[in-house]
């Protein structure tokens, strides 16, 4: 959701100055219709994006509590408290760890699966469906399935490990493994979507480039991948990395259902902290400050994407 909103905001933000500049050149007569045409989009943007955003930022400077009739401005107090709070740092570190593990794995595996499906000739639709299923399934419901699979006593995973003579873990109840177990679920969930995007990217690579590569002497699969596939997938890859990055930053469902950030905050992540502070402790002001931090990261990723998209990966 957030990424589409930011994308839309970017779009409008790019067009607005252009429209205004054109209007100035062409005189006031044409400025009015131009502004009138921009107005609906601008109004909606204010109403749905900028307004709430300003509200959240304003809220982060107050001590407002959900349901309380009054509040007072406390300046940067929320941020000061946040920076001194160990839970915030733990959840930020956990979130970054989660992103650092899930993004490369989900992107690489998504690409690998897409390449395998594309290179084979049989059961393509079958494989596509199988890998896409996690994307369509409700993550909350799937989390419960994972909870059973990861159960220390009768879970499938430990059962398999015992079968080959290995010691299992209490995956979700162990400080050492909880976050990584969540990472695996995150990868499993993101894989299918990335695969579909990569498949679309692969289909749009002109066949003649592979012919040219073959004639030029790029024989092996690796040489072809390096010469044609990987560079031609550049735009897709940037998009996939950013989308996966933003989605990983937003990880919440699995944490909330499976670990509630535990044990002892070992799987606490930003959005979960935000939820707990805002909706369990009703500290809306502090929750808003966390939201601002979260939005900063998402904004950085979006900026990274537009910077990358403008150079390097688009060739024409």
């Amino acid at each position, binding site marked *: 959701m957030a990424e589409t909103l930011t994308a839309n905001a970017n779009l409008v933000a790019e067009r607005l100055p252009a429209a205004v500049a054109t209007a100035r050149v062409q005189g006031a007569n044409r400025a009015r219709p131009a502004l009138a045409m921009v107005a609906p989009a601008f109004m909606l943007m204010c109403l749905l994006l900028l307004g709430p955003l300003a509200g959240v930022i304003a809220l982060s400077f107050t001590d407002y509590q959900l349901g309380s009739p009054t509040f007072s401005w406390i300046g940067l107090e929320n941020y000061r408290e946040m920076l001194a709070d160990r839970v915030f740092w733990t959840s930020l570190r956990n979130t970054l760890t989660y992103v650092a593990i899930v993004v490369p794995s989900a992107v690489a595996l998504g690409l690998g699966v897409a390449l395998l499906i594309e290179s084979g000739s049989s059961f393509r639709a079958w494989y596509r469906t199988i890998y896409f299923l996690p994307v369509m399934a409700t993550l909350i419901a799937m989390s419960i399935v994972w909870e059973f699979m990861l159960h220390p006593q009768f879970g499938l995973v430990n059962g398999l490990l015992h079968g080959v003579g290995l010691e299992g873990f209490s995956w979700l109840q162990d400080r050492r493994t909880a976050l990584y177990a969540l990472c695996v679920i995150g990868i499993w969930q993101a894989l299918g979507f990335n695969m579909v995007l990569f498949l679309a990217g692969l289909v749009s690579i002109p066949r003649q480039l592979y*012919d*040219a590569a073959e*004639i030029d*002497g*790029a024989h092996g699969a690796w040489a072809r991948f390096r010469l044609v596939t990987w*560079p031609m997938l*550049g735009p897709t890859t940037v998009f996939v990395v950013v989308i996966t990055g933003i989605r990983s930053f937003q990880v919440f469902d699995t944490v909330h259902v499976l670990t509630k950030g535990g044990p002892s905050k070992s799987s606490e992540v930003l959005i979960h902290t935000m939820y707990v502070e805002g909706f369990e402790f009703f500290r809306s002001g502090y929750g808003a400050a966390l939201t601002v931090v979260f939005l900063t990261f998402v904004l950085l990723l979006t900026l990274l994407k537009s910077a990358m998209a403008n150079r390097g990966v688009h060739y024409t």
Partner: protein
Amino acid sequence: MAKIELKAIRKIFDSTEILKGIDLTIEDGEFIALIGPSGCGKSTLLRVIAGLEPQTSGEVRIGDVSVDGVRPSARNLAMVFQSYALYPHLSVFDNIAVPLRMRRHSALARVPLLGRLLPGRASTERGIREEVERVAAQLELSSLLRRKPGQLSGGQRQRVAVGRAIVRQPLGFLFDEPLSNLDAKLRVHMRSELAQLHRQLKATFVYVTHDQAEAMTMSSRIAVMIEGHIVQVGTPAEVYENPRDIRVAEFVGSPKINALPGVIREDGGLEVLGRPLGLSTPAAAGRCSVCVRPERMELGAGPAAISGTVVHLEHLGSEAFVHVKADRIDLPLLARLNPDRQLPAIGSSVHLTYPANAARIFDAAGKRIEVAVPVRSGRALEQAVG
């Protein structure tokens, strides 16, 4: 430089037979054009020669060596594609260098960064640089070497594609409709550039096109392909003047040849619309087609003249096309005239005639029929027409 031989090449995709037994010998250093309507299998044939598509049966020999099962790059043929197929992320220099790097560097030396540490790579790379720069100078690309294909015009991209082909000094060149993405003016220019390149390199050129003007102007021989067969091979003049098949006659030549319905009488005489042509043939009696090139059509009366109405005029400056609808049959005819003379008005009645030696006769199956001009009546006809 090498001779390319095709023996009984067949290609079947799923259950559709695209190539139905192609035999063709392309001589060393020859410029041969494969032409034919779209879907006739000419591009498939080129891909079979290149090795991009394995033939279902038959043999491809390059320089007297069978290359069946040999990888495309090992066949040492270069190919220029319709879309140019340049690597969009590589500069012009790197695009041209790709075939040399693939051949001369080991897989390890091509690894980014790490490969640079390998001994001997630098000197190989220097050699590649020299050759790429030589080819770029030859094609007037020297100032563009740092650009990406996306920053080039169509003609420049075309030259880069040609550069990538010639840099490896292949045995032969395969062109797959290389000019069809260019605008008309540039196409004419590139036509002469390619012909010049052929004279310069003296290599074997196989050139696939559906544009007969390209085929006629550049190649030393034309192979006309129709529905998976090579119907006729010959010099451009031969194919134009003496088509062996009505499909060749109709495909080669623009505007299209006029086809008149004719009849072969029991005595071997030929008639068009009930009028004797003054030609006779040993072929069996029956229906036939009498084909006449538009430039051999003339306005004026005569024994074989066809009356009709002018329906459309095209004045092109150097020539004029008169479209005539024949009166008795609903048949569009075309005459190509010198515009110096007075052209008939649209809607006016005219007579179209043609010399007997301009007629090419094809039987009902479309095969060419030999005809003879009987001495006396022939002369009489010539006089009547002339």
